[in-house]
């Protein structure tokens, strides 16, 4: 009983598809130029033919964007790409755990004032971060000053040779101005509203009867979380992890203000610098942009369905 059979007027259907394909052309145009440009060899890069296909596939631009060009003194994006990974992966995991616990409390352990607290937390999602940026920078600088003795002494620590990596770990993740750890903690804190929102709405759908049954069996707060809620949380975690990873990977304002040294800058900042530099050719810029977009694009292609759900959750559709 499909209604489609009644209105398959041919010409209008064809027009419909033409419009859809034209729209697709608009959305794919930048991707086309990104891919075509990135895959051209240096000899093939020419402004007059920028829309034509590469004569032969070459990875020169990618390699130059990734490794830099010593002859011009440019640094590649490889280090920044890894910084973004070191930042986004732990920050995402921490955010998901915090959000899951908060959502559990706000959905299943409502206390007097819980809705007010929820609203209070939620507002943090919408603030322009400019309004907290200056004190945030000063706070991280203060932490950096307080923790400096620790960081400076790390190299002198007497640790077994197989634990040497701990020194690097401490230096990377010390929560301070200019470190990946400082940026990570900032992302976890300002991620609280959205992760709490998604998990709270997700857990609200789980029937209270399941928890009541668990309570009768003698389970407490942690028991119910561990044996009832958590096993049912996988889709919620997938949505939150995808959402957080892509927003942290793509974030720019915190990164540009809170990491002052190239060694700890994420890829968005490095790409912005690369694109603002006049000595870097445009094909290298395009390859850099493609590198910066690749991880989140891959996630979108593989897990698009969950990506959609995160987007819709972000619209407060509770």
């Amino acid at each position: 009983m499909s209604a489609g059979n009644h209105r398959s007027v041919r010409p209008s259907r064809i027009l419909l598809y033409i419009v859809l394909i034209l729209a697709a052309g608009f959305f794919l145009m930048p991707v086309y130029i990104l891919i075509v440009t990135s895959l051209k060899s240096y000899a093939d890069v020419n402004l007059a033919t920028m829309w034509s296909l590469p004569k032969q596939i070459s990875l020169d631009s990618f390699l130059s964007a990734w490794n830099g060009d010593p002859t011009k003194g440019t640094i590649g994006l490889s280090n920044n790409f890894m910084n973004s990974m070191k930042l986004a992966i732990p920050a995402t995991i921490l955010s998901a755990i915090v959000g899951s616990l908060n959502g559990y409390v706000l959905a299943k352990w409502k206390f007097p004032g819980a809705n007010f607290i929820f609203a209070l937390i939620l507002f943090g999602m919408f603030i322009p971060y400019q309004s907290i940026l200056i004190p945030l920078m000063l706070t991280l600088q203060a932490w950096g000053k307080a923790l400096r003795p620790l960081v400076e002494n790390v190299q002198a620590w007497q640790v077994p040779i197989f634990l040497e990596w701990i020194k690097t770990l401490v230096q990377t993740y010390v929560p301070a101005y200019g470190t990946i750890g400082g940026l990570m903690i900032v992302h976890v804190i300002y991620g609280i509203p959205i992760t709490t929102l998604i998990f709270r709405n997700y857990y609200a759908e789980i029937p209270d009867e399941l928890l009541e049954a668990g309570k009768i069996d003698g389970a407490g707060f942690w028991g119910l979380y561990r044996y009832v809620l958590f096993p049912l949380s996988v889709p919620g975690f997938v949505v939150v992890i995808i959402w957080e990873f892509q927003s942290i990977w793509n974030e720019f304002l915190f990164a540009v203000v809170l990491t002052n040294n190239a060694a700890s800058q994420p890829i968005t900042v490095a790409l912005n610098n690369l694109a603002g530099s006049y000595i870097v050719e445009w094909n290298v810029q395009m390859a850099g942009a493609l590198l910066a977009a690749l991880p989140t694009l891959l996630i979108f292609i593989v897990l698009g369905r969950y990506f959609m759900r995160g987007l819709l959750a972000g619209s407060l559709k509770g």
Partner: protein
Amino acid sequence: MHWRLNRDRLTAILVILPSVIAILVFVYGFIGWTGWASTLNWNDMMAIPKGGLFPATNSIQMDNYIRLFTVDQRFQIDLRNTIVFTVFFIGSCLFLGLGLAILLDQKIRNEGFFRSIYLFPMAVSFIVTGVVWRWLLNPGSAGAPVGVNQLLVNLGLPFLQSKWYTNPQALYILPDSPVGQFLHQVGLSSVTTPNFGISVAMLSVVLAAVWQMSGYTMALYLAGLRGVPDELREAARVDGANEIQIYQQVIMPLLRPITLSAVIILGHISLKIFDLISAMTGPGPAFATDVPAYYMFDTVFRGNHFARGAAIAIILLISVAVLVVPYLVNAIRTEVHR
């Protein structure tokens, strides 16, 4: 049911407490700090001891705000640009998003494929978008067009070429035009200045932003359209309504809450827009693409005008709050009642 504290409930409160404290300090405390800093005469990094949190400077009350709204030309251009950006960005996203959603709702073969193509720009950062569109909308030179201009020439549409984001002009009501003379008569001659015009360069930034966000608007509308029960359409059809009337009279009214959500979400993105401006144009020629969020960053982190930046940040916050708070309150209230 009466609520009484017990062990598990105490655990629950202790679990959420660190997050609440973090939000109180890092959101509300810091906003308070910024509000306080916006009243200071603070234009110097040295005013603050290293590792300290409070500058030792005197208060000048509301002077920073007064200055922004009276003598600061750059800020007034920024306000104009934000309004232009917001209006065109939201308008285009709603139009394109709704249009694409309705088209995709026509039982399209490969719908998922088209949907993914329209939506994927959401997955990349505004920085990537800015870098790519800066290149695409690079005007090139008259004899050697590049990017979109070159594409337009190749397609036989050279008259559509534009200077894009490098165009410093603003379109505004000329004082000696009939409308301008009328405005002069009614004492609104200040409206007939570029400060009340449309910055042409800003429209290029709008194009890039629409490329990134219209798919998202489409996804919102499509979810809404899928929520319209088939019986409703069928009933309207039985009543003799044609497809266009069904959309106009049955479906559109049901999509109103979605339009509201979309306006709130797109609106708060456009008021805060910073990344895209940074990567694509910066302040632009004669501040043609400057916005308050960029000015704040520029004046604080490059110019050390902390107090002025704090004042801009507070103005930004208030404008976002005016947009979001009523919506938030309403959303939570309806949810509690449900």
